[in-house]
């Protein structure tokens, strides 16, 4: 296992965590303000998405011109293209949880560093939700 690959992943994650803190996305009240379109709407967080998609698009455009990534064997592109019921239902449930709490997975994981009890409760429940999905899927006949 090349150390370089681990260091690159650590650095990528670190950059994301710093970006979350700088952008305001770490603050659940700001996130809920952004979602509060019928009330005191705070549109600033739309600029986070704009900045993120801009930089990510450049990375994607570059990646498409390469044979493979610099430190791994091949690009692991998502393969599913069908817009199906699990996609829509899952996104809808996620949105409800996001709106209730102001947390999505990235900021919640980054905020673990604060040691705040509400963050730990949220992330623990998120892991339980993920495990529940895994258990349910194993219990169902394969799709």
């Amino acid at each position: 296992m090349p150390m370089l690959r681990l260091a690159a992943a650590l650095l990528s994650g670190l950059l994301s965590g710093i970006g979350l803190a700088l952008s305001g996305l770490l603050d659940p009240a700001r996130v809920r303000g952004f979602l509060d379109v019928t009330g005191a709407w705070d549109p600033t967080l739309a600029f986070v998405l704009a900045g993120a998609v801009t930089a990510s698009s450049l990375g994607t455009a570059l990646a498409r011109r390469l044979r493979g990534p610099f430190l791994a064997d091949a690009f692991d592109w998502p393969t599913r293209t069908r817009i199906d019921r699990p996609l829509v239902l899952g996104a809808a449930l996620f949105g409800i949880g996001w709106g209730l709490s102001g947390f999505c997975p990235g900021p919640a994981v980054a905020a673990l560093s604060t040691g705040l009890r509400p963050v730990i409760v949220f992330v623990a429940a998120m892991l339980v939700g993920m495990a529940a999905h895994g258990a349910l899927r194993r219990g169902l006949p394969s799709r």
Partner: protein
Amino acid sequence: MSSFASAFAGGLQIGLSAALFLLLDGRIAGISGLVAGLARPAGEGPAGEAWRTGCAFLAGLVLGPPVFALLAGGWPVMWIEASLPVLAFAGLLVGFGTRLGSGCTSGHGVCGLARLSPRSAVAVAVFLGSGMLTVALGRVLA
């Protein structure tokens, strides 16, 4: 820096992080996917390497806010309005929903929209819509 400028600059960093992870490691920096991947046994070979790089990315993510605090001279503002039971319920929905829907704001939003994936565009529209509806309903019921 104005809040618009810091939002855009922070967004650029998040997007650059996703671009780096893709160009160096070849993978989509979807946080819900990386977190769920931790539950799989590490093992040997390429799967084990992917597991360890996922761990390293998440470790970096957790280190981000303290490093920001060091650089900026203070922690970013965080105001958590929801009570612990609401946070627990919301966490369950976010965990289950992001697995069922194959991604969250990072995988579908930052990475999927950049790939012009129709699947991700639908997911983003749905979770933004249901999030906005949830906050609006909370406002009516409160």
